[in-house]
């Protein structure tokens, strides 16, 4: 169970990071669009990835110690 949760956390982050790279490479105009808070998508996504890393770390910590 715990392994699955960790794998899920990992996949969520990989999706967020991977799609950022994909958009930067293939559709950079998306990054110029306005985002909530008055900044652009590039800044919001970048800051979001840093925040998501910390949230992921806290979530990993909150998981049960071990089920093996």
């Amino acid at each position, binding site marked *: 169970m715990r392994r699955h949760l*960790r794998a899920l*956390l*990992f996949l969520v*982050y990989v999706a967020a*990071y991977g799609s*950022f*790279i994909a958009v*930067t*490479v*293939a559709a*950079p105009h998306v*990054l*110029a669009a306005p985002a909530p*808070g*008055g*900044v*652009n998508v*590039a*800044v919001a996504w*970048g*800051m979001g*990835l*840093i*925040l998501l*890393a*910390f949230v*992921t*770390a*806290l979530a*990993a*910590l909150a998981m049960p*110690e071990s089920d093996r």
Partner: protein
Amino acid sequence: MIAAQAPAAAQGTDWMSVGVFAAFTAGVLVLSSLLGRRATGAKGYFAAHGQVGWFVNGIAFAGDYLSAASFLGICGLIAFWGYDGFLYSIGYLAGWIVALLVIAEPIRRLGRYTFADALNARFGSRTVTVAAGISTLVVSLFYLVPQMVGAGALITPLLGVPHWVGVVLVGAVVTFIVATAGMVSTTWVQFIKGGLLLLLCALLVGLILGRGFTVRDPGPARDAPATGVGGVTALPAWAVPGAAAGADGLVREEGAATGPLGPVEFLRVFSASEVAAWRTAKEPAADGTTRTIARPERIAGSELLLPGNSPTFRGLRAGSALERVDFASLMLALFLGTASLPHILIRYYTVPDVRSARLSTVVGIGAIGGFYVLTLYLGLGAMTGGHLNTGDSNMAAPLLARSFGSVLFALISSVAFFTVLGTVSGLVLAGSGAVARDLVSTALGRTPDDRTQVRIARIAALALGAGAMALGFLFRDLNASFLVGWAFNVAASANLPALVMALFWRRATAAGVSAAIVTGLAASLAWVLVSKDAFEKVYGLPGADAWAPFSQPALVTIPLSAAAGVAVSLLARRPAATR
């Protein structure tokens, strides 16, 4: 990329900086001598007895990780090119997710002192030990070069002494720290450095936000390097109430200021402003010679907050498919490289248990992530603060600090220098551990006793320190941050597929793991040596002649290493031990 090309202008000695710097150095040396008594035996020397608390270890992770390339390089990149520097911040932090969720716990459970220990826990194979030991040495040396180059580049403008003094000073102090007290003192140096770096940068960002933006006329183009430049040339009318705006809604009145801004507002105002970004170019002069001219380019802030302004990432906007692949490959290397760096991996052995390993990673991610958020403000603050030197982007952050007074400059400068010192200590320790534990033990055919191991490691630390100094001289004209990018590529290619196989794949064999390391190491090294960057920046040849289709090898060499590991494991399926 960091523009460390131009030798910093000769300056007088800043005695305040020298004083603060001397006090820091003396403090660290005394601490090391005191802690040296506690670092007895192999477990003390290599792993600080496994008794470091999770919080101290977490901040020490930040100390290990936030090297000169992070602090000076990223701030400088953002100060000149905007968002492109922040891409490194995003990639460097993302790598910690791999460390946290994939590598941290098995490494802590299986290993004792070195990266090879964990890799080889299942196999007990001499081949794996030697391959991992060599890989540790190569990656550590690759990572050492930019740190030493950075130390040399820093010391002249900071303390007004020649380049070689910087290299020798770092080499000597680090060798002393590592040789006397190993992991115990290295950990404390990292903790102090990591903590101070975070606190001072947070203070600096507070001052930047408090100052806000002021409209300044950039003046005409001039001979490079131009100093004391960089500023906002127009602010949005809504940010400067009462000022007269033009038809485009921008206020261009000299001295118009926003006053203090909040963190989100700061980015919003920057985005709506027009900024003088300084660009240098060689231009033919009337007398037939070539001059290097620095020229202010008025660019919309919103443009600078998008990727693709710097020469490195320009291909993202108008380049070929290969240039985009190159970018994706770099981002992959940053993502997978962190969890493959030996000096980061060995820090998992300093904590008492798996839970502490996890807790310290969380503290590390919090500290490092917080720092990377600050880099965007530091860089943009430097870009608009009016104190840039176009000849040395590495100095953007320290020069920004100088605009808030000489005390802050002295403190930031000393911490910048300690940034180099701390990272170099971690690398020398990782390298000396690999020599003493992995290579010498295998060569002798037996593991020497504790005392001998520590003695060998101390000698190896001295040799590595001397080697690092020599490389610092040799490569002093090279660009620090592209060397760091290479180190991540090589580390990820050589170590990550092997680690994942050894930790998670039941059918992996010792031969397969060794094949993955050797293939990844050789392929990524060969690739960077025939890449466009190497041709242009190392050999001084035209980049178009380079053999590699793009500069960052990770996208090709990581899968190659994994394929070699899987193929050899499946083909040579035999009982695990080869001894």
